[in-house]
């Protein structure tokens, strides 16, 4: 994405030329060294198996700044090893609107749940949770659209956030290697509608005692992922109407702070999905069967921060589908090849347990994180997989070291 890189250069030159309009520019790198037992979808050991693998996982360039006292712009450009892409680019009106309202428009991480709006380098653990990658897309729920959000007129902090979105979450490439999946092709290849989708989140924040804070959230989404007329979805095949998706989410974050530098965080999310579904492999004379598929995923973690620079934690992560690394994967857990249609896989599942321990040299400027992850797979129905010959899959164990560095101005520590 040469354009994105040029944009960054131009903006940084503009910034340097004018002290008044100079935005904050920062760069964040994420390097990993890891090892583990890795097999491909056919059960064959991959080149990464049992050796020390090294990957520069991500370079993120961020440009942020106020446009005037009321409005700001945020641009995040990322390279995951395959060229630069615009991760987020949005303008926000933050102050001065009636009804305690804020408006955001552009391409952005949607506030479905608490964690999705954070970039992975800001997580206390290593990778985006499996449930996010399966149910939202490998880079999370990123979409283009408009967000309005309001502070509720309550005695405590309550926020209602509403989005009208283009629906990229339902496009095939949002879930990675769609072309590898026969099942995927049946359902979402080339979303055939431009109808917007809608999502929202209600969140409440309450202090608990002098040192504890709790945030609770509930999210929802509704939209068409295939309109009538699409292959497998419309009346031309079976007389069915538009195929829609409904998602819900519940999230919780509790943080107890003993001091500025010592805290315990408990955080988790539950995500549910209900999608209209068309299966060709039936005996119906019309050529298929129409129904609905319900899937559920989620994660929870505990993170203890102590002595200003140290952290240790544990994460449990559950997702529908079989999360299976491939031979050419850039990252062992970023690009599975058996999960493209996992959102429709209500039979099989993946469960990961991750231990992580971090050390930061000085706040977020340099962070080292040791991690160990065991992923187990539960295959109940191999007809749902890309490789339908697979009947079982061994546990996958990864151990590694992550280094994150951050160049640029300090960012505020947000709850």
């Amino acid at each position: 994405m040469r354009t994105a890189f040029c944009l960054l250069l131009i903006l940084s030159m503009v910034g340097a030329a004018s002290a008044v309009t100079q935005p904050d520019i920062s760069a964040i790198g994420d390097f990993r060294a890891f090892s583990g037992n890795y097999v491909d979808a056919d059960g064959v050991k991959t080149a990464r198996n049992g050796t020390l693998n090294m990957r520069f996982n991500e370079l993120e360039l961020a440009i942020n700044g106020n446009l005037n006292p009321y409005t700001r712009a945020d641009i995040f450009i990322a390279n995951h090893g395959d060229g630069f892409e615009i991760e987020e680019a949005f303008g926000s009106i933050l102050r001065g609107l009636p009804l305690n309202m804020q408006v955001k428009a552009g391409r952005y991480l949607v506030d479905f749940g608490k964690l999705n709006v954070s970039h992975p380098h800001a997580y206390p653990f290593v990778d985006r949770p499996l449930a996010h990658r399966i149910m939202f897309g490998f880079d999370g729920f990123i979409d283009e659209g408009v967000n309005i959000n309001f502070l509720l007129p309550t005695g405590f902090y309550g926020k209602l956030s509403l989005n009208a979105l283009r629906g990229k979450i339902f496009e095939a490439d949002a879930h990675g290697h769609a072309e590898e999946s026969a099942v995927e092709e049946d359902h979402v290849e080339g979303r055939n509608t431009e109808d917007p989708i809608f999502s929202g989140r209600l969140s409440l924040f309450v202090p608990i005692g002098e040192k504890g804070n709790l945030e609770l959230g509930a999210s929802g989404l509704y939209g068409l992922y295939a309109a009538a007329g699409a292959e497998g979805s419309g009346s031309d095949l079976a007389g069915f109407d538009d195929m829609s998706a409904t998602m819900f989410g519940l999230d919780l974050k509790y943080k107890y702070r003993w001091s500025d530098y010592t805290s315990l965080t408990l955080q988790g999310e539950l995500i549910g999905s209900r999608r209209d579904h068309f299966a060709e492999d039936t005996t119906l004379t019309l050529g298929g069967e129409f129904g609905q598929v319900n899937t559920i995923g989620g994660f929870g973690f505990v993170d203890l921060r102590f002595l200003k620079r140290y952290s240790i934690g544990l994460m449990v992560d559950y997702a529908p589908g079989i999360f299976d690394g491939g031979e050419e994967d850039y990252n062992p857990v970023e690009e599975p090849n058996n999960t493209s249609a996992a959102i429709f896989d209500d039979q099989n599942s993946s469960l990961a347990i991750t231990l992580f321990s971090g050390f930061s040299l000085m706040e977020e400027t340099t962070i080292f994180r040791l991690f160990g992850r065991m992923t187990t797979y539960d295959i109940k129905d191999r007809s749902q997989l890309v490789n339908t010959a697979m009947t079982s899959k061994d546990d996958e164990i990864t151990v590694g070291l992550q280094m994150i560095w951050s160049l640029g101005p300090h960012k505020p520590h947000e709850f």
Partner: protein
Amino acid sequence: MKKLLIVIGVLFGLTGLAMAKVAIVASSTDLASIAKEIGGDLAEVNSIAQGRSNLHYVEVLPSYMLKVSKADIYLKVGLGLDMWADAVIDGSRNGKLIVVDCSTGIETLERPSGRIDASMGDIHPQGNPHYWLDPANGVEIARNILTAITKADPENLTIYQVNFEAFCLKVENNLVKWRKEAESLKGLSVVSYHNTWPYLAKAFGFEVVGFIEPKPGIEPTASHTSQLIDLMKSKEVRVILREPYFSPRAPESIAKATGATVLVAPPSVGAVASATDYIALFDTLLSLLKATR
């Protein structure tokens, strides 16, 4: 009956108007304390950071945004110390908020020259941001607050001006007393954890000869600690100042090696029980330092 209800309604309305206070939120307890002096009974003042908080490191909570959403004035420390305040202000959505950078008009110390980068630690390009620790700067802070509060509530301008004059006089009178008390501090050399005290040292004539942090914001290292112990021994430094939010481990081990005394010195109002307001903060600091002589 109807007329009576109208009269009662009008009276209640007027009472409500008369009781409406100027809502001020400050980043620090020090700015809040000065704002209370200027606003008096006409202002309701809150602070985001608590006295024991490290102002460099405050987590932005949604409850802070809610507080600021109802405020008329926000008081920032500025000079890059409370950069988190912008996230609180933006999150408040308050378009009518008067944002005051209280460092305006302050003659800052230790403004770095030449090329500045992060290899120098958590350095502040506009100068050391702990400027409220010189009582004379308290008057400048009060002047900034006076300008904002008279803009928010011009009807009570006279009352705020009287409060401002009274605060200036209070500082002036105490300054005479404090300077007299601080005569015994002449020639005192101290080591501090962080570079928090240049304004206090300049105001009261003692010297900070070294820091436990090798560079601002950088945790102590063995080699730097060893050099610092040698320096303290050669200069016969007997006092270590530790801010309450820093770990006592390094200061105590250095004190053990040098025979120095560790003082838990409050850099802000409310950091220790006796520092109840801006004036009491200096009373506390000076009595702590005097006790070492």
